[in-house]
């Protein structure tokens, strides 16, 4: 993980930064003093008057004419559990995975489960933060001390403690500490040191900072633009935070923090330089995976229980292997397939581990194995076992469930729900039929067919895969029929013999490409698109299309957009 850095590096960085830049001009209302704690210059003290409503010197002129409707509201956005876990890893300089220690939250009907207005800190979450952090930090307090030799001296010099605090803040608050905060955390250290060891006291300070609202909430408040008071411009640190989490799911690295400090992020070009740099980092594979996993439901794979009798080999190991395979698949698309959306939808190159040997029908092996699956059996992301398993019921293939899933995720449409008080009077079905034959009642019964005709072609196209993603050509002893036709949309009229054929068609369908742009938008901003976002979505699609559907170009367009860099005042 690129986000993994040693505390020492951060400390060196913060020392460097605070000496070179005596005073950050990067003030905003979330941290209005905006000065590194060590800066005591007169210039800095003057700058501290900045607060709500004060324009900053480095406002992008484009802000003066920006239409408020085209940007989202100023807000606080709580870290997801994954982002929080990545923050703790960065703070400790070693990888910890805290995700399993929190409630997974149920899979949303649609969407990503990250909407900013749905993430709060209730008493259970707050208490869990305490439990998880105190346990994790107790086990790592030695690492905290080792990170700086001066911390292990019997009497810790205050400048040593200051440097520790600033390094923690750059990782967890994603900005330097204010003077008042430095005093606050120094006092906390002293108070705890009365009864506890230096290591325990450092751990307590780290715990307080990681539980602080400045860690838990990403600030997107910005500072009001003088000539256009309905608009606020995100501060360089806020922007660095947004860039880092959007691309890598983790806090900013030192180069990004340096770009925030030296002001280069105030301009679109500076943002683009950092965005393009991070696209080449390992962290980007993590960030892209988080998006894809939430988009396709892999994040909630554990929720999709399978019947042990029908799938005796399916275990937690299988799920772990499926998730790992999916991540390697995405890495391959990003790194070796030029981030091509078409390849995302059609590539059959994948890297598997032994628990997946049976799923792919390959012989036993150890370690990991690169395979190119048969192109008549697989086509890209939506035939990965993880995606199929996460979207199938316990025993059967679930054509209706799969159909709704594909409609939502690839076409950005949902069939209407079954009518209220639906009266169904279905006679018992013939056990010799295939599932598809038994489900034919959905298209023959007028009560059902109005909706099922939308989703069934998508769902039946996947009949070649059982509920854990194994390819099959027989169902109930008869040959699987995965053929069909999509006739219900404007731009996508396809006739196909199999899911692979359909997915190949969908890979170049304008409906699907446009839907993908919307999905990335929703994930990036943690909200649904509105009319005011149409221009950005169209521009993003145009850039995506112009690059022959290179996903990096789509991300670059969105992540350098005005909507990314500015907010609307409430």
């Amino acid at each position, binding site marked *: 993980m690129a986000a993994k850095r040693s505390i020492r590096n951060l400390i060196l960085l913060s020392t460097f930064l605070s000496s070179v830049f005596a005073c950050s001009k990067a003030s905003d209302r979330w941290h209005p003093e905006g000065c590194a704690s060590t800066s005591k210059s007169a210039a800095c003290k003057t700058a501290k008057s900045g607060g709500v409503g004060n324009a900053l010197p480095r406002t992008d002129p484009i802000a003066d004419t920006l239409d408020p409707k085209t940007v989202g509201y100023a*807000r606080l956005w709580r870290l997801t559990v994954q982002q929080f876990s990545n923050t703790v890893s960065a703070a400790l300089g070693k990888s910890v995975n805290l995700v399993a220690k929190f409630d997974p939250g149920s899979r949303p009907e649609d969407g990503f489960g990250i909407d900013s207005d749905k993430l709060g800190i209730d008493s259970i979450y707050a208490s869990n933060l305490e439990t998880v952090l105190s346990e994790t930090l107790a086990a790592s307090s030695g690492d905290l001390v080792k990170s700086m030799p001066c911390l292990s001296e019997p009497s810790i010099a205050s400048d040593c403690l200051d440097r520790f605090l600033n390094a923690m803040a750059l990782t967890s608050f994603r900005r330097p500490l204010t003077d008042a905060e430095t005093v606050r955390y120094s006092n906390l250290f002293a108070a705890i040191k009365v009864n506890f060891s230096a290591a325990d006291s450092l751990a307590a300070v780290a715990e307080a900072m990681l539980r602080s609202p400045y860690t838990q909430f990403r600030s997107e408040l910005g500072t009001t633009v003088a000539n256009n008071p309905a608009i606020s411009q995100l501060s360089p640190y806020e922007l660095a935070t947004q860039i880092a989490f959007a691309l890598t799911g983790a806090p900013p690295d030192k180069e990004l923090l340096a770009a925030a400090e030296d002001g280069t992020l105030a301009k679109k070009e500076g943002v683009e330089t950092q965005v393009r740099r991070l696209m080449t980092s390992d962290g980007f594979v993590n960030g892209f995976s988080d998006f894809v996993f939430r988009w396709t439901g892999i994040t909630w794979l554990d*929720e999709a229980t399978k019947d042990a*009798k029908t799938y005796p080999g399916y275990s937690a190991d299988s799920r772990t292997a499926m998730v790992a395979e999916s991540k390697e698949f995405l890495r391959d698309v990003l790194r070796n397939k030029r981030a091509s959306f078409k390849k995302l939808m059609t590539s059959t190159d994948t890297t598997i581990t032994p628990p997946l040997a049976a799923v792919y029908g390959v012989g036993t092996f150890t370690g990991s194995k690169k395979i190119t699956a048969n192109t008549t059996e697989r086509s890209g992301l939506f035939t990965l076992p993880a995606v199929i398993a996460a979207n199938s019921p316990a025993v059967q293939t679930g054509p209706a469930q799969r159909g709704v899933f594909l409609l939502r995720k690839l076409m950005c449409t949902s069939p209407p729900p079954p009518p209220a008080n639906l009266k169904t009077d279905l006679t018992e079905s013939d056990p010799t039929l295939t599932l598809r034959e038994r489900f034919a009642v959905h298209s023959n019964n007028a009560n059902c067919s109005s909706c099922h005709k939308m989703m069934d072609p998508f769902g039946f196209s996947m009949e070649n895969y059982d509920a854990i993603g194994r390819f099959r050509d027989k169902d109930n002893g008869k040959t699987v029929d995965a053929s069909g036709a999509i006739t219900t949309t404007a731009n996508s009229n396809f006739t196909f013999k199999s899911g692979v054929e359909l997915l190949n068609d969908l890979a170049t369908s304008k409906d699907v490409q446009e839907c993908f742009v919307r999905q990335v938008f929703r994930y990036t901003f943690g909200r649904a698109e509105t009319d005011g976002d149409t221009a950005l979505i169209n521009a993003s699609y145009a850039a995506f299309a112009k690059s022959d559907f290179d996903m990096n170009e789509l991300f670059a367009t969105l992540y350098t957009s005005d909507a990314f860099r500015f907010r609307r005042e409430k």
Partner: protein
Amino acid sequence: MKTKPYNRRDLFKSFGASALLLHPILSSREGYAENAVKKRFFTMMTSSGVVQSNFWPKGNSASYDFTGTTLEVLSPFKSDLSLVKGLRNDYGPFDSHSGGAVSLLTGNWLNTDGCNKASCDFHAGDTFAKSASIDQMIAKYYSGKTAVSSLVLGLFPTSERPSKYISYDEAGKVVPLATNPYTVFNAIFKDIIQSCDSSKLDPAALAKIKSKRKSILDAINADLADAVKQVGLNAEEKAKLAFYQDSIRQIEATIDSAASSTAASCNGLKAFTTGPQIAVKAENYAAIAKLMMDLIVAAFQLDITRSATLVWSVGGGNGVPSTWETFNGQPIVESYHALTHHQADPVNFDPKLKILDEWHASQFAYLIGQLKASKEGSSTLLDNSLALWTSEIGEGSSHTSLNMPFVLAGKAGGAMKTGRYLQLPQTEHHGALVSILNAMGLATVKGIGRFPLAAPILLT
């Protein structure tokens, strides 16, 4: 999308499982006098109704028998129960699961502001209801008497639709479901249960740990106070911080809590303090359900809350396969909702569903059995409580709102008669909700939801 700005009070009550926390000193309701009896209210909602043909007792109000019915397992509690047949949860012109869940405890049709379909089974935002549910009304009435005003728990909810939510605050905003028993345990019981093991009790060491925890909370509070100022006039974002402040206050209260464990609660929560944790996964549904019920029983025993709500796996989602139960020797692998819905296979589905209804009855029996076994003075915790098992509709296959299951246990300190089987002509369920509120001590309530006046039909 623009959401309705919420004020601090709304958020305070509407986020989180243990929504309201107040130090006793903060509560000073005029004219309030604690009842001699501490009344507790429990609701369990199982979704999608029951198999009607098997559910109700045989016989009539004068003479009835549980043998051979879904309720057979409740036979030992016959004298503790009030069974009410003939109630109707009229959910209006909406999806039965979503409309039914909203109407179940609020008596109000769902809030159409935010529906994206006429049937309202999907809903933007989280203000699905128009008024408070009875569990939250009871919680509010007793807030300040206990550390936590209500526990609102859910077992493997699989849907974001309104259908899984039956608890709403006064503004009609959802009270979210806490789904992990271990995090609920840590938040509420961990400190209290420390005193179960006297060998771990070193008062001086405990005092130091408490002092450290409070110092950390002080620093977080100071950051929060700064952050609130910096957010300025942005009410919605300020509310997020205020909500975190309230959550911190709750942790402070549990650190300060004078409550100490009792032998019964130590025993009841043993699964949390010894042995390996059970993974909170659907395959462990039954074991997790038991943990949830144990938490509720202990919270009642220790008087940590007066209102607890448990929502079982929901209709309208994919539900959870009930593989711990068998039919003809085979585990039941269909999801609960699939069994209740399409009637794709009536020959096999109805018998399976009856088995699951019976399982739910046995779970209710477990909980009220625990309450009955807890002595409180000369009576029992069950005598001082009301426990309700109900569903948002009457029967799944037809999605009818008629004859909703309505099983009450306990006497609410003598306010509710028991040992009864009421067979009413089809009646909207508001009178039953008002009866519960009156019995629980909210004596001035005369109506609820769509009916400002609804006679307390269970109290006459």
